[in-house]
């Protein structure tokens, strides 16, 4: 039979100053880990939420991003005629020729400004291929005009990109006529404008970036992509739109690695803090340990009791860590993508799974820090323990 749990809880309460400081130390470590996980999770979520099933992105052969891809109008004409591409009511292929470039805008975070992706596309069928994207304010840009509709994160993070204001890039001013909402998608970090306006501004009207096509049924996507790759005349590469964005979440890998490394280094420190606290507790309660042994509690009961106390201390730290990072939930920030060379804004996501991981991490630290002191308590000889003051 183990010692009553109230014994451990009350001991933690009695030395509440030390308990709080140790829990805070563990909590800070958990908070670092959780904020990294929330950042990476948010970024992954932004990329994972981008793309529609059945959409296939076609780029230059071996191009890794739209930014580094060249796709000619001739290639697009050939592509449009391929079987397997869905057609609208008028018989027009759901295939959108697009140009992706970057522009430098003022930023709320960086004095030097930040790169933002600008996508030139034709409203029809460009919008039809992305039905999940809705207008949040204003309207879509009009064909043939120097107008832009900006993603909601662009509007949130760039003081210039406000409805009714002008953005200055390329050969002049562009009027912001609307803000679109793409849910959690990375498209929220883009500026959209009429393809012809963008390409003439960029002097790039013959060679654009990519084409987005809708393949139906969705089960034909694989063979369609393979057929494009096999076509030696077209010389294009293709992948599903969803896969294209998912692989961009690799932008988070360096941050994830660094964050987890820092959290692990801190975890070692926090484990030592927990160990120190528990060693002090064992030393102070030496006579209690002796008494418990005299009363009939086994060495294992004593070990378990002190080990549990360390876990409770760590759990407290885990909860503190979760509470510390909770205000980050939904906070929008941006990260420079190494693939698009522009900012992708996303929201920190503190999910129950992430918090559980944080609690698990805290318990791991508690277990690491508590095992040796608990073993030391259990190893004490009764008479030695009773004599200690």
């Amino acid at each position: 039979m183990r010692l009553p749990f109230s014994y451990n809880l009350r001991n933690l309460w009695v030395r509440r100053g030390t308990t709080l400081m140790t829990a805070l130390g563990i909590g800070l470590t958990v908070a670092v880990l959780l904020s990294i996980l929330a950042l990476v999770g948010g970024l992954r979520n932004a990329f994972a939420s981008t793309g529609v099933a059945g959409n296939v992105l076609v780029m230059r052969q071996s191009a890794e991003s739209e930014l580094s891809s060249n796709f000619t109008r001739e290639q697009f004409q050939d592509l449009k005629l391929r079987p397997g591409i869905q057609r609208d009511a008028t018989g027009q292929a759901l295939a959108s020729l697009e140009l992706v470039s970057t522009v430098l805008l003022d930023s709320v975070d960086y004095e030097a400004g930040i790169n933002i992706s600008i996508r030139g596309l034709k409203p029809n069928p460009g919008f039809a291929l992305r039905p999940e994207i809705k207008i949040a304010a204003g309207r879509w840009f009009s064909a043939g005009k120097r107008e832009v509709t900006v993603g909601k994160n662009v509007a949130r993070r760039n003081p210039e990109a406000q409805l009714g204001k002008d953005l200055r890039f390329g050969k002049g001013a562009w009027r912001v006529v609307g803000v679109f909402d793409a849910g959690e998608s990375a498209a929220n970090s883009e500026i959209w404008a009429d393809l012809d306006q963008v390409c003439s501004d960029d002097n790039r009207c013959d060679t654009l970036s990519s084409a987005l096509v809708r393949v139906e049924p969705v089960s034909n996507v694989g063979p369609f992509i393979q057929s494009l790759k096999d076509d030696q005349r077209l010389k294009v590469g293709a992948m599903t739109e969803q896969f294209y964005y998912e692989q961009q979440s690799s932008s988070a890998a360096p941050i994830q690695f660094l964050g987890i490394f820092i959290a692990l280094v801190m975890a070692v420190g926090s484990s030592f803090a927990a160990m120190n606290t528990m060693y002090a507790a064992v030393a102070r309660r030496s006579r209690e340990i002796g008494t418990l042994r005299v009363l009939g509690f086994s060495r294992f009961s004593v070990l378990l009791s002190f080990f549990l106390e360390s876990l409770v201390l760590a759990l407290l730290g885990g909860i503190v860590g979760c509470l510390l990072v909770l205000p980050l939930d939904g906070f929008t920030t941006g990260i420079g993508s190494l693939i698009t060379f522009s900012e992708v804004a996303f929201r920190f996501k503190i999910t129950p799974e992430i918090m559980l991981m944080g609690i698990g991490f805290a318990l791991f630290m508690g277990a690491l820090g508590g095992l040796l002191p608990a073993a030391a308590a259990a190893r004490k000889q009764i008479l030695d323990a009773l004599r200690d003051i």
Partner: protein
Amino acid sequence: MSEVVIEARKLSKTFKRDEFEVRALDNCDIEIKRGEFVALMGPSGSGKSTLMHLIAAMDRATSGRIAVLGEDLSQFDDAELARWRNRHIGFIFQQFNLIPVLTALENVELPLKLTSLNGKERIAQAETALRLVGLGDRMTHFPRQLSGGQEQRVAIARAIATDPDILIADEPTGNLDAQSASDVMVMLQKLNQDFGKTIIMVTHDRHAAEYATVIRHLEKGELKPEVEYPKKPV
């Protein structure tokens, strides 16, 4: 003839202190019968505490044999000794040794957690023990809220809660004022005479020893022959 509950033959205990060997108990022979109240007396370092620790299975003899309640304790491992102590021995310490974060009732209930009693039975038994020592109105008090005498009475309640065969008291009056010491000794005497508990008490205090039925002296690790002393009337 009363049953012998403790029987030691040629019991010795040697401690090593750095390069020195200290013989704390030297070829000690003792028999204690059920229902006896034995006071072990002697100067510091005479071996009385060592003998008490060996009887309570808190330490192991270097040589010799000790049987308590017919069991050869040298054959038991640590876990078996712990269970055995819980079942058969009640211990009263000089410094009370109550768990400071537990109430009087929880302290008394503690050894009962190792028995097969359920929660309700444990509480009932702990309450009975506390009432027996006159602390029915202090059950929810923490040790720091009690006087020294009251703390020692809680410790006595804890020692008797499991209804052990033997009570072992280590200087039970050593930290008490005269009145509290007298109260505690009257209580131990009552437990011995009314409830038939075998009590072994280590003490320096002549007055406390007068409550015992047998007084044994130790000197330099040797147990002296039994002598008759005037007994405190009940």
